């Protein structure tokens, strides 16, 4: 690391240590090749996957494990697409039964148009999954109270959204994100809503531990190029946060001396 002044040690979620603060999804890529190349370019160590029925009409089984090596990436099964706590529990258990790990990215959706989380159902599912020994990383909205409850429930990370899933709107409420980071002890990963590199940078400048994204990379014209940009943006945002930004002012202050001007 070439930064001076502030060391930026690795960070831990539960019992695992990570160097990259960027977590990426594996959905929506045009090809598997492009997905793997983009993930490698992003530098991400943790990668999310979804649980779905095997398509029996296909000639070859197209599971993602044929393309992603669990020895190279830490695969985080999600409960995406679930609208009830019961469904989320079912998907989480199926994901764990694949035998990779006992982690889950818990997500219980409450509304189809916005894909905003059903926070009551998320909390209910989180409590049950923690009791079953899962390491729960919970996707939630940017509401402090829900975030506190999820921490109390035993989640290993709380993951407020920047803005709705797949929207690319960036951080709509940096104040709430900062407050959640300030008030919780578990790692805060901002999950969903990042659209481009500047969004990732702004997200990390709020002081959060990491950022999780999928569409911003997968739906870019050049996903591999965007993955590289995101890697740098997350790094830049983190460094800027650690370096401590100057205070913003409503008035100009010259950078060159006022004195010493010619007569």
């Amino acid at each position, binding site marked *: 690391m070439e930064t001076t002044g502030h060391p930026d040690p690795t960070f831990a979620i539960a019992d695992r240590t990570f160097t990259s603060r960027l977590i990426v999804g594996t959905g929506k890529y045009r090809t598997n090749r492009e997905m793997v190349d983009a993930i490698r370019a992003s530098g991400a160590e943790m990668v999310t996957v979804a649980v779905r029925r095997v398509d029996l009409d296909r000639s070859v*089984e197209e599971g*993602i494990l044929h393309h992603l090596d669990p020895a190279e990436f830490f695969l985080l099964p*999600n409960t995406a697409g679930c609208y009830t706590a019961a469904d989320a529990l079912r998907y989480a258990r199926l994901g764990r039964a694949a035998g990779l790990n006992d982690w889950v990215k818990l997500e219980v959706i409450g509304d189809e148009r916005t894909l905003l989380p059903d926070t009551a159902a998320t909390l209910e599912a989180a409590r049950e999954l923690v009791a079953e020994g899962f390491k729960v990383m919970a996707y939630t909205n940017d509401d402090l109270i829900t975030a506190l409850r999820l921490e109390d429930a035993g989640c290993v990370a709380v993951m407020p959204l920047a803005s709705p899933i797949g929207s690319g709107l960036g951080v709509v409420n940096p104040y709430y994100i900062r407050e959640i980071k300030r008030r919780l002890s578990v790692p805060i990963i901002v999950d969903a809503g990042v659209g481009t590199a500047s969004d990732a940078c702004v997200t990390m400048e709020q002081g959060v531990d990491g950022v*999780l994204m999928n569409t911003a990379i997968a739906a870019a014209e050049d996903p591999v190029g965007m993955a590289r940009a995101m890697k740098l943006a997350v790094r830049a945002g983190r460094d800027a946060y650690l370096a401590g930004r100057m205070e913003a002012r409503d008035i100009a202050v010259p950078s060159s001396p006022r004195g010493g001007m010619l007569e």
Partner: protein
Amino acid sequence: MTTSKAGKQAPATVSITLNGKARAVGTGLSVAGLLGELELEPGMVVVERNREILARDAIATTPVEDGDRIELVHFVGGG
């Protein structure tokens, strides 16, 4: 329903619901046998049978029975 295979004229197939679709499979098939017929590697899929997850080491010994609702899932791309 599940007693039919011991009956007088056991049918050559049993009817199951596989990933939401009705399907007839041969009698006396194990879940491992079903995966084999579908050309699926047991290590790549998770089997849920009648809403209960089947442990990997139970796949070979669990029979496919008439009326079973079987779900075969795996990991796909997602965020």
